[in-house]
């Protein structure tokens, strides 16, 4: 029996699979160029069209034809971007984006603003009320209660004039006893003292206090010690232990390192357990 002209089913299936994979890759490449604004000329249109053409006779189902048309559509979009790119380069507005970016980074805010003011011609406009706005205003006015009724509800109190000392304000919790940064520095000194020659201290041993309220406050302040670079956490995940390591000098890591948030639970049960174990 002659095998000429006979295509084994499995081989046809494989070719289809391979072709679909190729088309999907073409679509993804075009998509990424479009969405990320990459150089459109990295897409070799001729090569990709040849690939689409090569597999076209294999397609039979609607899904396969849809994939094929999507690939063609994406390629057409890239051609449009290439054409826009050439058009833009030929205009007087074209400047190397890196050059502009470099200049924007180098120039001061004041200089940038004063340069911009020479190219900025703001619109002059006068606001006026429309007949619709006027009708709305009348409706609002008519729905308002008379003044004597509104004032009756407010109930203003007359009080004697007096003076308050700083201590009175602290007692009323209007003013803090110490400034926040001052309080933070005091806690940092305490941390360094408590650590002594050990370089670190267990989290609960440091934040734990006689009352739960005080513990919460110390935990809150400790989080700022870490955020502002006065100390860091040493976390042993397997042992579920957290240590605080103070720095001798505050270190600013803002913008240098990717910041991460570390959730530490300080609930009442946890505090009670810590307190019992301490007194045991």
């Amino acid at each position, binding site marked *: 029996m002659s095998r000429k002209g006979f295509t084994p089913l499995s081989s046809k299936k494989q070719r289809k699979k391979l072709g679909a994979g190729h088309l999907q890759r073409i679509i993804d490449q075009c998509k990424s160029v479009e969405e990320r*604004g990459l150089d459109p000329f990295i897409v070799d249109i001729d090569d990709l069209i040849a690939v689409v053409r090569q597999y076209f006779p294999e397609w039979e189902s609607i899904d396969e034809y849809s994939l094929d048309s999507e690939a063609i559509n994406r390629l057409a979009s890239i051609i449009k971007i290439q054409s826009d790119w050439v058009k833009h380069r030929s205009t007087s*507005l074209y*400047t190397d984006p890196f050059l502009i970016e470099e200049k924007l980074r*180098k120039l001061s805010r004041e200089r940038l603003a004063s340069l911009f003011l020479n*190219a900025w*011609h*703001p619109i002059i*406009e*006068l606001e006026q009320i429309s007949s619709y706005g006027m009708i709305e205003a009348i409706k609002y006015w008519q729905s308002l209660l008379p003044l004597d009724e509104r004032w009756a509800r407010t109930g203003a109190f007359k009080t004697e004039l007096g003076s308050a000392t700083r201590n009175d304000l602290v007692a009323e919790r209007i003013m803090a006893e110490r400034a926040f940064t001052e309080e933070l520095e005091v806690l940092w000194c305490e941390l360094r003292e408590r650590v002594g020659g050990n370089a670190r201290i267990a989290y609960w041993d440091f934040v734990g206090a006689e009352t739960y309220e005080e513990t919460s406050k110390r935990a809150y302040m400790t989080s700022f010690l870490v955020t502002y670079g006065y100390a860091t956490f040493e976390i042993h995940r397997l042992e579920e232990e957290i240590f605080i390591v103070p720095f001798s000098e505050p270190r600013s890591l803002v913008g240098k390192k990717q910041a991460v948030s570390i959730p530490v639970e300080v609930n009442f049960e946890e505090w009670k357990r810590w307190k019992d174990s301490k007194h045991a």
Partner: protein
Amino acid sequence: MTKKAQYQRKLKRAAHLLFYKRHRRPGVKGWELRKRLGSDYPKVLGLLDAYLERLDLQIKTAFEGEKPSEKPTLDQMDRGRFFVTIRGGMTPKETKMSGWRIDDVAGLAIAMAFIIAKKGKASRDDVEDLLRDKLPGWRVDINLDRYIRAGYLSQDENRQLYLDWRTRAEVDEKALVDLLLAAESNKKEEAK
């Protein structure tokens, strides 16, 4: 009525239409002007523009899509939007009076220049990154949203930023790029 008196009336009517904000967006569409002033409204606008020059004001047109390279057709004018803008530049003091801080103006300049350099489209993350160099971090997002609300920039669902209608109406994009280029060459000269 003489022709001169007729044009004087049209001039006044055009000034009323252009100065008073009647829609959510400022400015008047070309077809509205044609309806109120007649088919010779481009000529009326030309006369008004010459008059406003003495007051350092001008009539500016923002066309739909790209700006026509040659003299715009009547159809393009009809679809365009006309505004009155300041003709010359502004001083930093005047800007403060209009409610814009120097930081806000610098931020707007950065965002616009970057988008222009990126062929009219840039990702919001890239613009934010650049703005963080000049503005406090917490203000970057607020400022960008303000520029979008004011109509200077627009944003699509993929967080891509574009120049919007107000930029086309108020900003001379070419002058902005040229001024930026010249600023650095001046700096180099100073260094020498």
